């Protein structure tokens, strides 16, 4: 076979320029077929089907470019981490006045003091628990919100709520919304990467990063330091050379087809997607290969902790997250904790909370803290918004006959830091026992609205038409939480 590779490459480049033309170009035309009723509103993203992940402008100037979510699956207790309640220590062992006799899993027991000691950290003197000393060491950089509420007290629906704004399955995840709006800064990597915990995925699994009714191209691509992307390589290593030759042939045949059907934007788009696939075959193994990371970095994250295999694996996921953010991946959702197994694999501490958190705390704390510190050291926090969160809180009482806390969607904490976030603030509060949000109450919709706002997106204008409704991440709710903004 004789073909001039360089001229071929040139033609691809020309084609890409062609597709990259402004809204009057082919890309804009094909938008109508790609996104059916989209584009009727002026604020809809103008998506070029040839480059669906090309960076797009937000509605207004953005504070943040990328988002990193550290999601603690299983409902990590606010009372054992960030929501210090001295009154709860006083009332240890007493019943909660007018409290619910029965909660999610069964009858309530008495109030129980925080299972870890709290001490002040940083200039702000924020009280944090002994379970999270590494994360607490950077407390002055954080903004806390202590008064979040969820719409569900059940793991699956509540994780859906955090990740999609709806408790039901089938809605687009926040990462999908954001890549739909903004594309990515790096077109050689997926725009949205979900990094499941080494122990497995959380209860709502792929719903956390699914496209819902958005086009498939905006779904999160799951992989972590242990599990590669599906089908990235041939099933049995066959031969690199033939692989490349096959791709060349494919391009040439597609060119023939394009010649017969000139100006078909969808054909251009498909060729572009092949090229991205080919680039991903090179870029993904490269980014997943941590062998170039120096010892002191491995050390800082705990990736070389030979005594705690899960921690070391989670730490490697944290390094992977940093590498993805570094390369301009728009949205990274990093999971800590797998599905609910009565607290064995995640934060669902119903029975023996202290015992379980003594396992999970060290896995999460040092690597997560190292990730934030590393991003800060590299100057990446000025463009990156970090959100540490969980699906709901836990009760101030123990469950009857147990030493653990039941589900509590009435009040819980999230931590934010990075781009656009006001450092050193604590916004909102639960009541004195940490039972219910009492001051500046915010349903999680408000955090979604805030996240979009920092990305330069108006949460009421970022919509997608589906089954007769212009859908939004925030449904019909959402208020930007001004108290968290720098």
């Amino acid at each position, binding site marked *: *076979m004789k073909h001039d590779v360089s001229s071929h490459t040139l033609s691809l480049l020309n084609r890409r320029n062609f597709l990259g033309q402004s809204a009057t170009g082919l890309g804009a*035309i*094909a938008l*109508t*077929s790609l996104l059916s*009723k989209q*584009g*009727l509103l002026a604020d809809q993203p103008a998506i070029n*089907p040839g480059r*669906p992940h090309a960076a797009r402008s937000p509605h207004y100037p953005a504070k943040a470019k990328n988002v990193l979510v550290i999601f603690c699956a299983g409902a990590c207790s606010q009372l054992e981490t960030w929501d210090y309640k001295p009154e709860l220590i006083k009332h240890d062992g007493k019943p909660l006045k007018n409290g619910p006799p029965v909660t999610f*899993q069964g009858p309530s027991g008495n109030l129980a003091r925080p299972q870890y000691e709290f001490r002040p950290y940083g200039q702000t003197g924020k009280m944090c628990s002994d379970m999270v000393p590494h994360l607490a060491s950077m407390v002055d950089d954080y903004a806390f919100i202590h008064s979040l509420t969820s719409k569900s*007290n*059940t*793991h*699956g*629906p509540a994780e859906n709520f955090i990740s999609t704004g709806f408790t*039901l*399955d*089938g809605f687009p995840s926040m990462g999908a919304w954001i890549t739909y709006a903004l594309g990515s800064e790096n077109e050689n990597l997926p725009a949205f990467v979900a990094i*499941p915990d080494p122990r*497995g*995925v959380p*209860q709502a*699994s*792929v*719903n956390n990063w699914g496209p819902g009714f958005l086009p*498939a*191209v905006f779904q999160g*691509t799951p992989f972590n330091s242990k*599990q590669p992307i*599906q*089908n990235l*390589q*041939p*099933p049995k290593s*066959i*031969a690199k050379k*033939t692989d490349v*030759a*096959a791709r060349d*042939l494919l391009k040439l*045949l597609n060119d023939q087809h*394009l010649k*017969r*059907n000139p*100006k078909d934007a969808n*054909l251009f*788009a*498909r060729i*572009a*997607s*092949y090229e*991205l*696939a080919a680039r*991903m075959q090179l870029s993904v193994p490269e980014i997943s290969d941590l062998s170039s990371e120096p010892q002191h970095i491995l050390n800082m994250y705990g990736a070389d902790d030979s005594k705690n295999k899960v921690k070391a694996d989670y730490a490697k996921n944290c390094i992977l997250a940093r590498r993805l953010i570094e390369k301009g991946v728009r949205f990274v959702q990093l999971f800590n904790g797998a*599905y609910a*197994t009565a607290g064995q694999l995640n934060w669902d501490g119903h029975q023996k909370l202290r015992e379980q958190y003594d396992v999970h705390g060290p896995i999460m704390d040092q690597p997560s803290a190292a990730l934030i510190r590393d991003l800060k050291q590299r100057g990446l926090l000025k463009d990156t918004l970090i959100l540490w969160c969980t699906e709901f809180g836990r009760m101030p009482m123990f469950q009857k006959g147990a030493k653990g806390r039941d589900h509590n969607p009435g009040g819980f904490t999230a931590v934010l830091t990075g781009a656009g976030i006001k450092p050193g603030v604590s916004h909102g509060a639960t009541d004195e026992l940490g039972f219910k949000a009492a001051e500046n109450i915010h349903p999680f919709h408000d955090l979604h609205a805030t996240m979009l706002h920092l990305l330069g997106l108006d949460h009421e204008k970022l919509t997608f038409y589906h*089954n*007769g*409704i212009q859908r939004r991440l925030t449904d019909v709710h959402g208020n930007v939480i001004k108290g968290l903004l720098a």
Partner: protein
Amino acid sequence: MLLLAGWLPAGSIVAWEVVLFNRDVRPILSDNCFECHGPDAAKRKADLRLDTGAPGQAIINAGKPDKSELFKRITHTDLEERMPPVDSGRVLALGDIKILRTWIEQGGKWEKHWAFIPPSRPAILPATNSAWPSGAIDRFVLAKMKRAGLQPSPRADKETLLRRVSFDLTGLPPIPREIDAFLADASPRAFEKVVDRLLASPRYGERMALDWLDAARYADSHGYSLDRRRVMWPWRDWVIRAFNDNMPFDRFALEQLAGDLLPDATIAQRVATGFNRNHSIQSEGGVINEEYRVETVVDRVETTTAVFLGLTFGCARCHDHKYDPISQREFYEFYALFNNVPETAHVGNADKLADKPFVKVPSVAQRKQMEWHRAKIAELEKKSEAEEQLKTARKALAALGQALPTAMIMGELSPARKTFVLSRGQYDQPSGVEVSAGLPAALGQWPAGAPRNRLGLAKWIVGGENPLTARVVVNRFWQMHFGTGIVKSSEDFGAQGEWPTHPALLDWLATEFIRGGWNRKAMHKLIVMSSTYQQVSRVSPGLLEVDPANRLFARGPRFRLPAEMIRDHALASSGLLVGRLGGESVRPYQPPGLWDDVVYENVPRFVQDHGGKLYRRSMYTYWKRSVPPPNMQAFDAPSREVCVLTRAKTNTPLAALVLMNDPTFVEASRKLAGRVLRDGGATEESRLTLLHRLVCGRRPTERELDLLSGALAEFQTSFRAEPEAARRLMAVGESPHDPVLDVVELAAYASLANAVLGTDEAITRN
């Protein structure tokens, strides 16, 4: 006559000659005014309604826009007085204001929303083009084309046409023998013969069922977080059979909505009602049952109204609909029809395949076996000494009964469950308002004498009075064949939906559908026999500029194949496809550890099938809602969690990776290589030609032959240098390779086949 083209909203192609309320004015009012002056009584301001004429008429002075309050307010110089209010964020475009002005000048009359006026049969236009003749469809399409100054495109060549219609009607590519026969048939009826053959093929039912499974959110698992398996495939098989038997659509709808309420309902008629039991069911411990039962009933309302009426009732769950005349109370009156199922809405942690109510569905063979056992038992019971034998026979019968597949069905509680309007749609906030079953007033009257239950509803849906169903269904036929419906928003015919590009054609098709006894095969034949359908899909630069999205149908439709057809095509062209119709869902290859992530404790992991089950049509692949088959999802197959009436068609790199590396596609490539080497004759050219015909349905051009031949030489060289790589390639997938054939040659052709199977042309229907 007005020349409005310059400032028409984007997407409008033709300058309208007169302003029509429904086409031009209603969308402006709906987008800008209805939220505060529309059907929602709670949000209505100033007691003014602009969705219906009676109250709105007061602010119109017919013929005199400047003396009409409406026009004064939208053009008011004082921003405090100007409508829409500044803080609404809405601004009327200059073009919109001009349309409203012209409308008032022309009389300012309201019309009922077009889709709520029953279709009347339009006169067929006279033929104006003797070179592009044919039937009613073409005349409607041509009239519109001419007004836009366009000409129809020529007929597609025979090979393209055969491939197009084969995929459209059966979901499979034509085989070389069929191509040869069609090419050789010079009779004027040649294409019609092909169409008749395809419509008679059992593959027709499978292809048509594909879209229906999306609409009915069919899956093989219960959904939500535990997502255990369920057995609903007897319902799926009912659907396929109904299509193949050409069951009239009115019957098809009636049995699925209310088969259980028919007198002496058969098992099949009860199985049909599984349409409204395909929804997800919770199994996670601790959830509040009533919450999910309410979601289930809402899902039935949303699915039923979207599929049969093209309306978005869901909006009226929490408040009166903002755009369509459906009040919240009317939503719950409709909801009452589906609120009476004796279900638990929770299948629990155990491996429970069905929530009640359900039926057991024996196959013919199973029924015969059971009859045989029953007869034997009866016989043994007469003999006193046969105690042991009797015990064995009874055990065998019981075992047979246990093994029967189940299907969840609809049923009615007695006495009926009470239905209340739920405040803000919340399950735990029933208002004091109790409602009984009924239809929204704007849609019509409950048929006289019909029972106030699902059967009465079904009779109204397919009765003559309902303005929507026939239009909605024929519009989806059109969408199937042209990629886009005559009404583009095929799921929404309400005020927020799009105006039909060809209203008269839509109404003609709808009335024709009813006139012909809701005969679906006849409608598909009518459409594919039209010259409109048979045009070449190539687009000239001029045409592209005038009509980029092909809304005027001045060229043939081209689109990427749906997910299932892409995989089926690979299986078919390689000869791997196992054509068995229906039955239990199958588990072909999946990426390693695929379900590990979402199976909990005692939920079974993915166990791959072997043998023929690896090569069944994709619609039989086990559909787990939380993890749909990735090689389907990459091509926009939905998760089946909710009703989907239009699939997106996007291009993702994950799709490219599937075509290159998914084991099914790699195995198909090497089997295709074997087929080509065995059946492709002795020369390289004849082999490459066969390969190309099998995959693209046509002979390759000389240039393509050159490219294929050049690549083949390259593959041969590299595999000759590394025969181990060839052997590894031949080991992908479980089907054996022909030991007679040379491994290096096979591998070289397999690499070639892999590339060809992944080309745009292979996965596009031109």
